[in-house]
């Protein structure tokens, strides 16, 4: 059943087709990403009203919240790619794992940094062992583990498979880690985070946030396309179509 349901996807599992598809999508994704990011952030940073409690410092949510949400979204999509790559033995899906991992790690770093910068005016200190920040830190370690494992093998194809397995193990563990950390946090420091647990957000603040959220998602997709293209070239370099491509481009240059 599964086989026939996804038969129409088969051509895209072919590296060459996927390479060209990513190449076609890339300019649109990148253009839309830049547009929505600029729109969302300029609106959010310059035009939306300031918060009655936090003043202007809340405006960091236009970067912090999207990067935090998509740092987890990137991990999930990485794990989904890993699952597809391992179960159906589709190599391009395994390469996608390696393409997404560093982007997700950078998103996580952005979320951690903006979270800490937000904490400075709010809590008076750069770092608090708040449940969400701690989970985000653990997520960064999980990303770094996948990246380190993928690079630890002299046979690159083997490293990617093993790293894919680790990504799946990680995604199974992520909710457990998240709830454990939350439980630990309520046990140890109780009330610090309730400050941000707002029941509602004003539409004038919400719209730029949603646009920024979309922008970060598009940027993730665009960067994944970009990195996946170079992964495909690296792994297929001995194939005739890549050699042809190189000859073509050299011909155009000279």
């Amino acid at each position: 059943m599964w086989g026939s349901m996804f038969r129409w996807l088969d051509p895209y599992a072919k590296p060459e087709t996927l390479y060209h598809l990513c190449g076609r999508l890339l300019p649109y994704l990148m253009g839309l990403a830049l547009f929505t990011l600029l729109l969302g952030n300029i609106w959010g940073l310059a035009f939306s009203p300031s918060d009655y409690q936090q003043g202007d410092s809340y405006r960091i949510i236009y970067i912090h919240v999207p990067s935090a949400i998509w740092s987890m979204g990137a991990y999930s999509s990485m794990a989904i790619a890993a699952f597809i790559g391992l179960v159906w033995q589709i190599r391009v899906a395994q390469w996608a794992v390696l393409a997404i991992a560093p982007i997700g790690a950078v998103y996580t770093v952005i979320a951690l940094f903006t979270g800490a910068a937000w904490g400075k005016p709010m809590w008076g200190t750069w770092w608090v062992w708040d449940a969400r920040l701690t989970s985000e830190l653990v997520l960064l370690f999980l990303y770094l583990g996948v990246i380190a494992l993928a690079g630890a093998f002299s046979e690159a194809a083997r490293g990617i498979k093993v790293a894919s397995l680790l990504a799946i193990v990680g995604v199974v563990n992520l909710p457990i880690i998240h709830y454990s950390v939350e439980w630990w946090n309520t046990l140890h420091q109780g009330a610090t985070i309730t400050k941000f647990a707002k029941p509602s957000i004003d539409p004038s603040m919400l719209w730029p946030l949603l646009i920024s959220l979309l922008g970060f998602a598009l940027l993730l997709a665009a960067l994944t396309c970009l990195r996946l293209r170079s992964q495909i070239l690296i792994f297929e370099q001995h194939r005739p179509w890549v050699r042809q491509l190189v000859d073509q481009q050299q011909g155009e240059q000279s």
Partner: protein
Amino acid sequence: MSIILAAEALSCVRQDRVLFENLNFQLSAGQVLYIQGKNGAGKSSLLRLLAGLTLPEDGQILFRGKPLSGQSEEFAGQLLFIGHHSGIHPQLTALQNLAFWSALSEQAVADPYQLLGSLGLAGLEDIPCFMLSAGQQRRVSLARLWFSTKSLWILDEPFTSLDQQLIATLEQHFLQHLAKGGLIVLTSHQSLSADYPALQAIELEYRW
């Protein structure tokens, strides 16, 4: 005669180097496939492909006429693979190593002392294998061939560091296995001396 193991347009790439392309053969019961070639020509890689450990870059391997990928359990049930490394743990004695492999293949060895003795290991059964010579370790590893019920043997350099007498014993055992309808795929640097009824040879060229 029905074909048991076949390769169709097999090709293999390791570390961006093409080892072989468009390799074909067909093996039926009682036949030997003898793979020759220089170091690094891809003999071991070919054996690992045939043992189902790795997947070919192109082409496919057929077992009883059907692709290997769909029936790996049945295939593994018929397979005895001894790779480049002997599979002998040097900290264990010959008897302990033998017990491990016989437990895994679920074949009890009637008299392990007699078996090891017939391979010239009498008196060495109870000392850790790291104290044995390379040839003696190879014998412990090959002892499996005497109690295995598997029909397809894939052996990487079985004759390495064995003396002439034991090579002769081993080749006699090969002939018995073939006579019972078994199959053997092996690599070797030295030429085979026994007279095999149906021998196929493949020479792998070293390619850049």
